């Protein structure tokens, strides 16, 4: 079964930078007096994981196994659901489904779009 596939836990510079910003939801939400327990993007992340699993690109069991390995290593200090997001990005990068440069460029584009106007 593909769930036995291992994951390279070597750090990804782009993701490592994000995890050290101290911008996890449980940190910033209280700062603004927001009591919603989850960040607004969490259900969308779930949708992405489901879609990847349904399509066979990344079966749920394989993702969860990799999440466990990553949560116990390089993302051990990051709370959920941020840890799950970093893990998903990490897995997609390591499997070559997305490149780090493409992801960095897209993040720049997305941020510009969200801050426009």
């Amino acid at each position, binding site marked *: 079964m593909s769930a036995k596939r291992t994951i390279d836990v070597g750090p990804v510079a782009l993701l490592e930078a994000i995890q050290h910003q101290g911008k996890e939801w449980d940190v910033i939400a209280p700062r603004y007096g927001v009591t919603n327990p989850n960040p607004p993007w969490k259900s969308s992340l779930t949708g992405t994981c489901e879609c990847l699993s*349904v399509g066979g690109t990344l079966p749920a069991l394989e993702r969860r196994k990799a999440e466990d390995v990553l949560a116990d290593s390089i993302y051990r200090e990051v709370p959920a659901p941020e840890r799950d*997001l970093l893990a998903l990005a990490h897995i997609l990068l390591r499997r070559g489904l997305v490149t780090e440069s493409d992801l960095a460029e897209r993040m720049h584009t997305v941020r510009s779009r969200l801050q426009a106007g």
Partner: protein
Amino acid sequence: MSAADKHGHEREHAHGHGHKHGGDGHTHKAAPMVEEITDYEVLEIAVRELAIEHGLFTAEDHRKFTEWAEAVGPAAGSRLVAKAWTDPAFKARLLKDGTEACKEVGIDWAEPTGFGTPSDYTNFRVLEDTPTLHHVIVCTLCSCYPRPLLGMSPEWYRSTNYRRRLVRWPREVLAEFGLILPPEVEIRIEDSNQKCRFMVMPVRPQGTDNWSEEKLAAIVTRDCMIGVALPRPGRTTDIHPVHKARRPVQSAAQHARAAE
């Protein structure tokens, strides 16, 4: 008020100004919102957009699954148990064929795709507690969970701490949730997997005679259906004290770090 769309965008809502409007002249005070865009938010969007562009799935598929994830919750499971408590014929059908009986409370395990999500279309079984038998569910392998009935799993359910320790020290782990069972009660742990999902049907508590299904459902919380709590009159939420682990499990990596 503030709002966020399913793509994670914080946005202004039409009521977000604290002004009077509408025919009744009512006033809203703006609810607080996070006034910054974090890289986590940006990363989630970027990953999704790239995946869609690479043809891994479509935006429509994503919308459908996200909508489903936002819609599911433990209320369906609560209704299921309350109905079984008050309707012996339904209870018999539920214990015989869980997936089929779920349709009677509006839950179709095949949603949202027609064949279910890969991790959810399964053989579903309800585990009936008795005064001398208590069930608890876990997924030691990953985080399999009866999502159509209970919604998304709580974070602790996915933790290696719960998954590894429950099967070894069930009484101690349950005690950490505040559930201390007498020794004469047998505890049976049911390990979920990709093909089988389980849900606990607790014993109907005393003091609930003549209660309506709706009133009963209110005390059947998520934790009761996982098996880490028992229903009782007046208990309608899963807020519970967190007790320190008496036998914490350490992974190989944690052992290595401790040795450093």
